[in-house]
């Protein structure tokens, strides 16, 4: 069971690159999985911005395309 579940994975795109991530993650889980602090990142999923307070309730779906952006040095 557990094996099966862990075996299960979904493929998504993050910042242009394909990735396999465990099934059943929320977007908040995804950020944690990627080592990102939610307060430091803005998430665009499939072209739509996800509000920060919606990250927990939003499941990562197979085929999702994510843009994870933040502030960097600029003029």
């Amino acid at each position, binding site marked *: 069971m557990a094996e099966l579940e862990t075996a299960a994975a979904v493929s998504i795109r993050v910042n242009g690159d394909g990735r396999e991530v465990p099934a059943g993650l929320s977007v908040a889980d995804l950020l944690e999985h990627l080592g990102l602090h939610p307060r430091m990142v803005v998430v665009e999923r499939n072209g739509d911005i996800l509000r920060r307070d919606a990250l927990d309730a939003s499941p990562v779906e197979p085929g999702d395309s994510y843009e994870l952006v933040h502030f960097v040095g*600029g*003029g």
Partner: protein
Amino acid sequence: MATVIAEPQVWDEPLTIGGRTLRSRLMVGTGKYRSNDEMVDAIEASGAEVVTVAVRRVDLDRTREEGVLFHLDPERFLLLPNTAGCYTAVDAVRYACLARAAGFTDWVKLEVIGDQETLLPDTQATLQAARELVADGFTVLAYTNDDLIAALRLEDAGCAAVMPLASPIGSGLGLVNPFNVRTIKARLTVPVIVDAGVGTASDAAVTMEQGVDGILMNTALAEARDPVRMARAMALATEAGRLAYLAGRMPRRERAVPSSPLGGMLG
């Protein structure tokens, strides 16, 4: 020096943009510094309250180094996101929305570039993006060229400030066309912030002497041999140019006029 004891507020009134009051008329960027420490020290020395940042993808390998938020406290500085790198109104609006979603501010420094080589703005696309962003509730500070017509339309579009260039981004050529910038300032009612092109202190002073409300710069600090000392120089020069404008300079004349009395010479 006298700069220490004097009380600046007696010398100038504060600048207000989009309902927010600023004591410093110098705004600075965060790009291209040799190190984050140097960037932070330079920003401190500049006295700037408004600090621009860019919106980019997180680097999934080494994030910590990159994020500006790890180095600048958004409570202390107004982090002004820009739309640098956008070549269409659609892109600029997308970046602006992502920036606002970070939750710090609804201000955006709007840039829509028209040419990769010169980084000159596409004023037509900038105008279109400005209209959309204003309608969507953003406080828009619009980077533009020194064309009065474009500046007037950006004001009509509801921009909170119009930001004509002094010369191309990163060129350090200074204020090439003071006439255009002076005319823009004379004709607009919203604040005019000169953005891009200032290279050294005298450039900042001469720019403020045109009567504009402020200056935004990045390369002049980041590429100086000593960015922190240059930041201090720019803070002083910006205030100096502002006060000289308010004080009203002496007339230029091609003849000489003695400073000491002609009378009372010995026999």
